[in-house]
């Protein structure tokens, strides 16, 4: 691992840490969106009392940014959990099992994989009561085949390795060998990478739909997406109310993706 990658890992790790801290802390910060409105301090530039300035309705942008993490943090974790846990198991079964079990799993995975994710999320939102939790659940399910595909490749590659065969030959149960020796010891870097990716995707969908305004988080509740949406009515000389959350979105997504990739790479190097 080169010096540059190591710096990248630290930087992206810092971003992930900050987002996770904010996501954990945010629910405990009291915030009443209606009370925050104050028309005598509209569109103020960043200052000591409002470190990131105020928006069109005089609300503190830093506060909304912090509270905005609530919109995607838990749903993102949930989606990552669903995709990685179910995906890993499905991938392991698809890579190890034979016969009809394998055929059914492979078919189901392939089926889920053909659904266009965002389109299907919108379809579900049309039919059911849209909420970020629902969106994240669907996103998590739709990412199962992606995770399963990489896990399956790994399981198939490792399944024929001598030490795995040796473990089985020594009398360990093959389920234990797969769960512990392959999934736990060998596949965790893959899972970290995929989890970070799915989390980033949920952030992308949540902010995107909140930006569009109908299925995500609705004003006055804060979301980075609906904060960016103020761009539609802002005067050109006051860009910070959308610039700050837009930057936060880009930083967080690229931070999570980079962290997932670099941490996984480091893990893979350590395993080898």
């Amino acid at each position, binding site marked *: 691992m080169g010096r540059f990658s190591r710096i990248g890992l630290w930087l992206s790790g810092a971003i992930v840490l900050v987002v996770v801290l904010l996501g954990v802390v945010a629910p405990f910060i009291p915030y009443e969106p209606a009370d925050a409105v104050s028309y005598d301090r509209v569109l103020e530039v960043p200052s000591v009392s409002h470190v990131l300035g105020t928006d069109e309705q005089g609300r503190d942008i830093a506060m909304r940014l912090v509270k905005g993490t609530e919109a995607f943090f838990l749903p993102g974790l949930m989606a990552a959990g669903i995709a990685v846990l179910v995906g890993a198991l499905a991938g392991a079964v698809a890579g190890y099992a034979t016969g009809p079990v394998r055929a059914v799993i492979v078919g189901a995975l392939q089926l889920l994989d053909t659904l266009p994710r965002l389109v299907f999320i919108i*379809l579900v939102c049309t039919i059911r*009561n849209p909420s970020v939790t629902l969106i994240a659940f669907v996103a998590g399910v739709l990412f199962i085949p992606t995770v399963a595909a990489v896990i399956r490749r790994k399981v198939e590659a490792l399944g024929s390795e001598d030490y795995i065969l040796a473990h089985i030959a020594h009398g360990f149960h093959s389920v234990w060998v797969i769960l512990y020796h392959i999934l736990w010891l060998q596949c965790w870097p893959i899972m970290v990478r995929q989890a970070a990716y799915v989390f980033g995707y949920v952030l992308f969908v949540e902010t995107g739909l909140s930006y569009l305004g109908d*299925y995500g988080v609705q004003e006055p509740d804060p979301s980075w997406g609906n904060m960016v949406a103020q*761009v539609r009515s802002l005067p050109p000389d006051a860009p910070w109310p959308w610039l700050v959350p837009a930057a936060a*979105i880009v930083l967080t997504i690229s931070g999570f993706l*980079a962290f997932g990739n670099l941490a996984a790479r480091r893990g893979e190097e350590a395993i080898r």
Partner: protein
Amino acid sequence: MNRLLGLVLLAGRRLAGGLLLLVGASFLIYFTIRSAPGDAIDAITPMGTPPEVKEKLAADFGLDQPPLAGYVTWLGRSATGDFGESLVFAPGEQVMTIARPAFKLTLLVSGGALLLCLFLATALAVVLGEPSPRQQLLTGALYFVTAAPAFVAAIFFSQGMNAFVRRFVEDAGYDTPPWYPIPIYSESVMPYFFAGIVLVAGDGLFMDMLNTVRAEILAVRNAQFIAAIRAKGASTLPHTFRNLVVPFVSAFAARLPVVLGGVVIVEYVFTLDGAGYLLLEASKQRDFPVVVGLSVLFTLAIIVMNLLADVVRAAVDPREVARNG
């Protein structure tokens, strides 16, 4: 001849597989509809829909029948391209009538953007050559910039262009360009072009493509048969190109779903009359037949793309037929 027969057989098998997937996917879509809470028909229609419209809708979608029978009814109608009539967006119009031109446009924009992305990634990969520590700053910066979701990229792009026009064109006393301000509500091609740029630059697509294309180019370039071809004094270019067709087609096909997701939001941001815009607009207005029709079409596009990619792979690579034969 033997190979041609194998190819035809493989194409046939893939076609059957594709049809099966389509049936499966439509099944999932249909049961998502049926899973609507409460009375399905009330859940999916806007408030105040006249009862006779509701009844017709229920009949069209087989909602008045048990789930499986309803699915068969609906599938039978959908298979002929009949997705029912629009409720709100263009009341009384056949869904296919409004969806077809919009979908064509969307495919054009996303396919074009994907081709552009592939082209740019290839060009950069060739320029960069073997990876070296010195390039990491560049690729790291690119990684960061292109990780922005397409809608954020679109906002940055439009705000940047608009600011540019205000600062350097308007204030300087020149005529403003016809595309100012973005988004434009006009018949010009510029919005499509902008949408394409944003699709290439956003959603992490470019770096993903670059990494894949670069790895494939390096793998072929460093392959032993290329050294052997060089050693016998023949030109390596035709061999390199031919061996890159399969990875490139795969890279293209694998990213179509990503672009088809990105295009939905980008069309909405740039107000293009594509299928993505139509989908979101119809979904907002709870124009349920349009949403379902478009969902099926999007899924169909992905299945067809994978099918085409499989056939091209098999046509170029003789091992493919052997592996699946």
